[in-house]
C-alpha cells in the first residue's frame, strides 16, 4: 500500500508551486497579482484564462522568474525563484513562448534561432546540432531549418519558438497568449503542437489565453480576474458557470451558452456541455 502511495505521489508531483503570491508593478497602487495559490503537476495541461489586465500574463512571468513576487514564493521543481543561484536552472526547466511571433526570434535563420538556447547554456557544439534537429522535427519544422524567419507565417514562427524552448530541454512550457496574433490556421498549428507535446512528450503545459476553445483542450482551467484566481477546475466544471464567466470578461463556446439558455427554460440538459455532440445527443436521444 505504502509503495503504491509513493508511486502515485511521484506521478502527481508538483512541478510548480505558487504560494500566496502577490505582485505589483513599480509605483502602482493595485496589486497585479493578489495572494494567488496554485500548484501545477508534472505532465499537466493547465490553462489560465482571463481578460486583459486580469493578471494572467503577470502570473506567467512570475513562474520563470522574469518577475519576482512581492510577497509569497514561487517554487519551480523545488527551486525558489527568489534564489539568484537558481535563475538559469529555473528558466531551463520552465521555458516560455511569448505572444508576438516576431519579437522572440533572434536568429537570422531558423536553426540558428533554435540553437540560441543551448548556446546560452554552454552546451557542446556537436550536441547542439543534434538538439536543434530533434527539436525542429518535434514541431514539424525541420525542412525549414535554413529559412530566414521573416519568410515564415505566424504559426510557423510560433512553432520555431516552441522548438527553441524544447532545445533547452524544458520539462515545462509556459505559453503567454501564443495564438493571440495568429490567423485560424496558425492557431490550429500551434494548438496541435502543444497538445502533441503534452500527450506524447509528457511536457507540462501552462497555457495563458483568453480563448475558451483552447482552454477546453486542457486538463484544468483557472480563471483569473483582478489578480486573483476566481474559478478553478476541469474545463467542464468551469464552463458550466456561464454567468460567472461572462462576468469575468470571457467568452464561452456558443454550444455551452445555448445549453444554459435552454436549461433556464426548463429543458432537461446536463449543466456542463462543452461539445456540440453532447447537446445534440441529449436533445435527440
Amino acid at each position: 500500500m505504502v509503495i503504491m502511495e509513493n508511486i502515485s505521489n511521484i506521478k502527481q508531483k508538483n512541478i510548480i508551486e505558487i504560494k500566496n503570491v502577490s505582485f505589483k508593478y513599480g509605483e502602482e497602487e493595485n496589486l497585479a497579482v493578489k495572494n494567488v495559490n496554485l500548484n501545477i503537476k508534472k505532465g499537466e495541461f493547465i490553462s489560465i484564462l482571463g481578460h486583459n489586465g486580469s493578471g494572467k500574463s503577470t502570473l506567467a512571468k512570475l513562474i520563470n522568474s522574469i518577475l519576482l513576487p512581492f510577497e509569497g514564493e514561487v517554487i519551480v521543481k523545488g527551486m525558489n525563484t527568489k534564489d539568484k543561484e537558481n535563475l538559469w536552472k529555473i528558466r531551463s526547466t520552465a521555458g516560455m513562448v511569448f505572444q508576438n511571433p516576431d519579437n522572440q526570434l533572434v536568429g537570422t535563420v531558423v536553426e540558428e534561432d533554435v540553437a540560441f538556447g543551448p548556446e546560452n547554456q554552454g552546451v557542446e557544439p556537436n550536441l547542439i546540432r543534434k538538439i536543434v534537429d530533434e527539436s525542429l522535427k518535434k514541431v514539424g519544422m525541420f525542412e525549414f531549418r535554413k529559412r530566414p524567419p521573416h519568410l515564415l507565417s505566424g504559426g510557423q514562427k510560433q512553432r520555431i519558438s516552441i522548438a527553441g524552448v524544447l532545445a533547452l530541454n524544458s520539462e515545462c512550457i509556459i505559453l503567454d497568449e501564443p495564438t493571440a496574433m495568429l490567423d485560424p490556421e496558425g492557431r490550429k498549428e500551434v494548438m496541435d503542437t502543444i497538445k502533441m507535446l503534452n500527450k506524447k512528450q509528457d511536457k507540462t503545459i501552462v497555457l495563458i489565453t483568453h480563448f475558451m476553445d483552447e482552454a477546453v483542450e486542457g486538463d484544468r482551467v483557472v480563471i483569473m480576474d483582478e489578480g486573483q484566481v476566481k474559478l478553478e477546475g476541469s474545463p467542464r466544471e468551469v464552463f458550466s458557470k456561464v454567468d460567472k464567466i461572462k462576468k469575468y470578461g470571457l467568452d464561452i463556446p456558443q454550444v455551452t451558452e445555448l445549453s444554459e439558455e435552454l436549461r433556464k427554460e426548463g429543458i432537461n440538459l446536463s449543466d456542463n456541455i462543452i461539445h456540440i455532440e453532447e447537446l445534440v445527443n441529449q436533445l435527440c436521444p
Partner: protein
Amino acid sequence: MSIKTKNLTFKYSEGTQFETKALDNINIEIKKGEFVGIIGHTGSGKSTLIQHFNGLMKPDEGDVIIEGKSLKDKKTKLKLIRQTVGLVFQYPEYQLFEETVYADVAYGPKNLELDENEINDRVKYALDLVGFNYEEIKDRSPFDLSGGQKRRVAIAGVLAMKPKYLVLDEPTAGLDPSGRNEILSQIERLHEKSKITVILVSHSMEDIARLVNYIYVLNKGKLHMEGTPKEVYSNSEELKRIGLGVPQIVDIMKELKYKGLMVDTNIFNIQDAKNEILRVIRGNSNV
C-alpha cells in the same frame, strides 16, 4: 453610387516564373449603405482586394470604379479616392505618432487641407463616433492609452476623413473577448448612426454573421461564393472544404436537424437558436 470591380486581376511577380494571381477576375459591387463582409483564408486575396478599394494598389487587368471614378483613368485623383474610402488596416494602433490624440486624429483632415474650424469639428465628430469623451481624451498622449483605446483612436483618425465607405481589416485582431465585443458594437452603432457603408474583412464567422447583410467569399484569389449570410452559411460543407468555417450555432442547428429535430438552420445567434429549438420541442410535445 458604389464601389465596383470589373474583372479585377492583380498579379505578383509579374513576368517572372513566380507570377501568381493574387486576384483573379473579381467582379463585385458594394452599394452605398450596405454592410458587407469579406471572408477567406490567409492568402485568399482579401488584403490585396481592399487595397484596391482606396487606390493603394491598381489593377493589372480589369478595373475598379469608385463612385464613378475609374482607377485606370490617370486623371483620377487618388487623394479624393482615399477621402471617399477610408481603410483601417490590421493593428491600426501601430500607426499612431502624434503627441496628442487630437493631433493624431487631425492628421487625416490636415492632409485634406481643410481649415482649422473644419478640422476641429471633424476631430470632435470622429472621437465621439468611437465612443470617447472628447474633452477627456483630446490632450492625452496616444501612447499612454490601452491597446483597445489606441485602436479606437486609430479608427477615429480614419473616420475624421468623413469617408463614405469604411473598410476594416480584422478590427478585432489581437483583442480579448470584451475588447472584441466593444469594437464590434461600436462598428454596429457607427453603421446605424452615420449610414456609412461598412466593409468588414474577418476570419471570425461569428463576428461576420452578427453584423453583415452580404458576404463575399474569396478563395485563392477568386470570388468563390457570395450571398446573404443565410445563403452563404447554408453551404457549410463547401465552406469547410475551402478551409473556412461557419458560426458554431449553424453547425449546432444543422446537427440537430440531421438527428431529426426539424429546426430552421438559418439561424446565427443564440437567442434565435434557443427560441427555434423551444418552438420545435414544445410543438412536438403538444402533438
